[in-house]
């Protein structure tokens, strides 16, 4: 049913939702569906109002000798246009609610396969991995500046942590957006359905470097992801090697090269003032 309607809208060339970024997470589809339903309902309402209005304007232009109808209203009609919108809006509420709770209620989050901590600061994302021990804040943790690496078709659990001002983690293709508050951990999750490299901008105004604050989500297929993990955390050589080797090393060195989009962008965007390059460190 929905598909036919979308098809019809496409043929009439009135499907503005064609411009949505491709849907690349499990719930992206679900969100788009609600989007479409509301688009159709409001589109019909808009059409109704517009057609009636044009009709009335053409039909009821003042003419000599004709007098307007002396009417103060019509209770039956008014009841109809009170009750029908109420029911429609309630319908939209219930329909929306099921999708919302799946995406955002922590109690309904799926079990995650990969856990990442996202730290937001003016004006960059940092992605922290717990390492093989699965525990954060241990020596095998690793931090990646601006790039998140995840496997496809796996549930990725995010813990969003702020440090300075409010930021918002936005991945358009995943239909994921969640504000990040300083000194708080806010959980979020996604399950990417497509491999590729997706831009992850900050969506909440966070200062002069807000524009250009972004990172990338790299979605790997299983084999690629395993290879990446093996590369980052080479299997420990025999027995109990002292764990702290390399802990002092900066993560920067381990980062895949040639891709520090953030710094570049921030620098280039400022024509005269050096103030903001300082903030970026």
């Amino acid at each position: 049913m929905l598909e036919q309607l979308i098809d019809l809208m496409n043929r009439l060339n009135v499907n503005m939702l064609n411009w949505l970024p491709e849907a690349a997470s499990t719930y992206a589809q679900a969100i788009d569906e609600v989007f479409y339903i509301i688009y159709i309902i409001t589109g019909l309402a808009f059409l109704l109002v517009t057609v009636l209005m044009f009709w009335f304007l053409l039909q009821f232009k003042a003419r000599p000798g004709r007098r307007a109808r002396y009417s103060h209203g019509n209770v039956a009609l008014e009841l109809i246009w009170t009750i029908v919108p109420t029911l429609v809006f309630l319908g939209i509420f219930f329909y929306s609610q099921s999708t919302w709770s799946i995406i955002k209620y922590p109690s309904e989050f799926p079990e995650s396969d990969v856990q990442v901590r996202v730290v937001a600061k003016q004006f960059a994302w940092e992605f922290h991995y717990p390492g093989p021990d699965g525990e954060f804040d241990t020596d095998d943790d690793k931090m990646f500046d601006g790039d998140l690496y995840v496997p496809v078709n796996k549930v990725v659990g995010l813990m969003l942590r702020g440090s300075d001002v409010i930021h918002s983690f936005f991945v358009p293709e995943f239909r994921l957006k969640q504000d990040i508050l300083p000194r708080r951990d806010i959980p979020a999750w996604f399950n990417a359905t497509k491999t590729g490299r997706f831009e992850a901008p900050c969506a909440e105004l966070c200062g002069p470097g807000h524009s250009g604050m972004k990172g990338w989500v790299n979605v790997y297929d299983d084999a690629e992801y395993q290879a990446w993990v093996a590369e980052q955390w080479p299997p420990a050589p025999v027995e109990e090697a002292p764990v702290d080797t390399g802990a002092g090393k900066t993560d920067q060195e381990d980062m895949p090269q040639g891709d520090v989009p953030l710094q570049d962008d921030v620098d280039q965007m400022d024509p005269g003032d050096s103030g903001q390059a300082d903030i970026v460190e």
Partner: protein
Amino acid sequence: MSESSVATHAGHHREGFVKHYFFSLDHKMIGRQFLFTGLFMLVIGGLLAMMVRWQLGYPEEPLPFMGGFSEDFWDGESWWAQTAPFGIVTSEFYNTLFTMHATIMIFFVVMPIMVGGFGNFLIPICIGAKDMAFPVLNMLSYWTFVPGVLLMLLSFFVPGGAAGGGWTNYAPLAAVPDYAGVEGHWGVTLWCISLFIIGFSSLMGSINYITTIINMRAPGMTLFRMPLTVWSLFIVAILLLLALPVLTSALAMMVFDRMFGTHFFIPDGGGEPLLWQHLFWFFGHPEVYILVLPAMGVTSDVLAVFARKPIFGYRAMVYSMCAIALLSWVVWGHHMFQSGMDPVLGTAFTLTTMLIAVPSAIKTFNWLGTLWGSSIRFTTPMWFALGFVSLFTIGGLSGIFMASTPVDIFIHDTYYIVAHIHYVVAGIIFGIFAGLYFWFPKMFGRMMSETLGKLHFLFTFVFFNLTFFPMHFLGVGGHMRRIYNPTQYEFLQPWQEMNTFITMMALCLGASQIFFVINFIGSLFWGRRAEDNPWEANTLEWDAPSPPPHGNFLEDPVVYRGAYEYSSPEVEEDWLPQSVYLETAVAGPEGHD
């Protein structure tokens, strides 16, 4: 009529220029003062918007007309050379531009014109009173507003520039001066102080409006005979009285955080950033209805007059405004769905938000009902009122998308919101124009040019839609709001042409206002003299001379019926003023509405 204008003029001379134009106690003059201040700020706010659009359409290219400055100028220390080096908008200045654009349009254009201007001018005269209940308080309300305006404008010139945290100025970005990344911390502080001050101005106004409407209605003017404009302003005054103290306290807390080391909103000292958002939006959502209700009232009145037909469902119109007023207290969380607020609360706020859309729908259908079977005179005010209805329809419908929590995940903080805001809030400007063209004859005693007025409407309506409708598309594409340079994002590259297009349309929209400026100023001095009741309308203000003298009416009006008796079978003409006594009428002053 001529007698009365002689009397007014005599009044002018007796009073003295300064007393008459500056420290007047007359509600009509105070209304005009608010109106002119608001129109002046509209020009400023509009220019800021043009600069915002320029940067988005032509990122980091020098603003137009910058070639005229010499090399020496840009090397110099002047404010402009520092703020926009070589005419290029910096990211700091960009943040200031959109912050101040929104702040000015909301607090210094729509509120002063609608509430201060129309409220003052219309409330007493539409209910048959000679003036406001507290004329001195009324004057004080304007003169409290002025320093607020000056401080806000001054803030552009302090080191670091004016506030740049968005009109919502979320903490901690706005609460901790260092986070702003500019030298000088006065921008946001002055922003807070200025809004703090004009809050008092609005409070004085609202107390006055409420008292006047409750106590000073003419004999026979029951509440349910009041024109909807007065009803809307009455409800707005109540909302202002209850909402503004919340903003005022939040602003005070913000200033304390910034200057005196408190930590209301700063987590490092145990504060809570979301507290600011709750307080701001607890004020902020009633605020958006404070902005829109008067436009709804004006539109209803203008539609009825030029449809020559009673407003459809008068009581439903009143009750739906009351419902909006009540519900507007329990929907603020829809601005915070993605904020980190408990998502379960988000569910509750979606429900209330869906409910508040119902009265808006009722009003739209009632406007249509008013047109049905009418006899429409297509005057300039009518066109603007119709424009408001169609823009509000789009804005109301786009609200439904955002009220749906899952859809809001995607469109929150994108251009979809910007489109919504402008269809509702910038749409209010159509309500303002409808009111201005409609009451101009009463306010200034002269008619405006219909030809220029219609051209103004045509160009404004077309370019408005060409500017703001495509913003929905940007939003669907994921284009964030409040970003300085969209070309920094790969996924937004395909949208740059659209951004440039929108910028061109916005410039045309700005340029179209020249019709209004010429018409307004020209008519003020050279317009045809207006009769007392040029539109053949029913409400009491049209009984008074144009413009009305001190005390408004030549004889005290008595009201015999509701405001919308157009095309009544009781009389031959198609209008029947509220104050006309009919022998044949069944009821006297206490009779039917």
